[in-house]
């Protein structure tokens, strides 16, 4: 098929996964948090269950005046939301939804994911700096420090998987998990368990913790910290520009959860199912895993209090990074011995 036509379809499909995915997670967050606090949550919008609440919110934001502070650095201020969403969308390029259902299976794969995911950080820093607001400035700097500190555990956790799979391409990593065989002495049903969930359990925990921090979600939401910084780097943003940051955060959650699912939980792979079927069933399998991880993110958010800035740095440098390095050495050892 024509390259450009195919590209257009791919873009459409990715948007078709990303936007509803983000809306579902926003709605899930409203509803789950409500039930965790013995509230009902959204109730009216859209009839039953208030399912249209995220859409109603979006529509409301669209009608709000677009304010730019007089002192702000105009161009940077306006460019920031673009940068955030560009970075988020670029993440979806390499995500495999099936053996062949992937926008572009880059050889760099996971390395590219790590590189592009820091593009959003740049947007956040731009937003914080250009707002000419003290809260925004402190929020932006905090975001930069946090994303720097947690980028490393993320990278180190990924290396463990790269050793096991012997490739950086996300598709190859899923294939490696599908081809994994446990010892013959174990019953065959053991093969249902995604192998890296067990073998890279340390990596999985590090990756999830670090991606929570990369998304600046509670307990790592110091860049926003409502009670001390108003809204952090978002303080001056109103209307649709604010919505775009918000969308970027939740779309980023979809992307990070999908990356985690692909690396550690087997991605689109389903045992005992042939590749032809997987091309159609794969997206459903992957999205189920994404929603499971998103649920864990939401659960953690409504369970833990916010950390202090130096505690955050201590966790990253004293615990996660040494654990990540140890995981690399052990995984290498495991790979060589077996």
């Amino acid at each position: 098929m024509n390259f450009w036509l195919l590209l257009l379809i791919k873009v459409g499909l990715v948007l078709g996964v990303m936007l509803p995915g983000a809306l579902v997670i926003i709605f899930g967050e409203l509803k789950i948090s409500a039930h965790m606090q013995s509230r009902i949550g959204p109730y009216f919008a859209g009839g039953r269950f208030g399912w249209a609440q995220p859409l109603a919110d979006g529509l409301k934001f669209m009608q709000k005046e677009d304010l730019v502070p007089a002192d702000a650095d105009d161009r940077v201020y306006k460019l920031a939301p673009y940068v955030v969403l560009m970075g988020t969308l670029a993440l979806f390029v390499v995500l495999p939804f099936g053996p062949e259902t992937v926008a572009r299976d880059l050889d760099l794969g996971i390395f590219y994911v790590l590189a592009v995911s820091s593009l959003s950080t740049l947007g956040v820093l731009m937003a914080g700096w250009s707002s000419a607001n003290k809260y925004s400035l402190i929020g932006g700097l905090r975001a930069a420090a946090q994303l720097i500190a947690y980028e490393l555990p993320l990278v180190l956790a990924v290396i463990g998987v790269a050793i096991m799979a012997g490739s950086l391409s996300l598709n190859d990593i899923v294939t490696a998990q599908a081809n994994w065989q446990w010892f013959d002495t174990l019953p065959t049903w053991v093969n249902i368990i995604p192998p890296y969930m067990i073998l890279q359990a340390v990596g999985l925990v590090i990756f999830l913790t670090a991606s929570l921090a990369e998304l600046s979600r509670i307990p790592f939401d110091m860049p926003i910290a409502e009670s001390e910084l108003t809204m952090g780097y978002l303080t001056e943003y109103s209307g649709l520009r604010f919505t775009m940051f918000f969308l970027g955060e939740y779309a980023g959650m979809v992307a990070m959860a999908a990356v985690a699912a692909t690396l550690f939980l087997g991605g689109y792979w389903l045992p005992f199912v042939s590749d032809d079927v997987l091309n159609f069933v794969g997206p459903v399998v992957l999205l189920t895993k994404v929603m499971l991880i998103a649920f864990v993110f939401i659960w953690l958010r409504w369970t833990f209090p916010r950390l202090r800035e130096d505690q955050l740095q201590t966790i990253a440098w004293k615990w996660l990074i040494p654990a990540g390095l140890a995981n690399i050495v052990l995984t290498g050892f495991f790979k060589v011995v077996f």
Partner: protein
Amino acid sequence: MLDQYFGDYITVFVFMAVGALLVGGGLFASSLLRPDKPSKTKSEVYECGIDPVGGGWSQTHIRYYIFALLFLIFDVEAIFIFPWAIKVEDFALADMGGFILVEMVIFIAILVVGLVYAIRKGVLRWE
């Protein structure tokens, strides 16, 4: 080969452009719906409701600038681990597993020494 190469880049750029288009399109749609009544008070920066004191770019002591230096070292070295990670299997199959392991353990040990030095120096202690 070259088609593959350009195809990769074009796909990435198109996806980024769509991300930008999403924001641009949203802003355009919003501009049709939203009111636009600028005033001097509205265009002031927010500061607890009072008039802002001093400029927006006030000087603060950024205690975490040192992490940027640490990060630079670790991130650059993490890049070197990637090619190693992919080649572990090949080396193990060629009976050189011990060699490649020792190499990386030395590399990581140097990294850890650096980290321990930084921590002992009190980079993480805030007073």
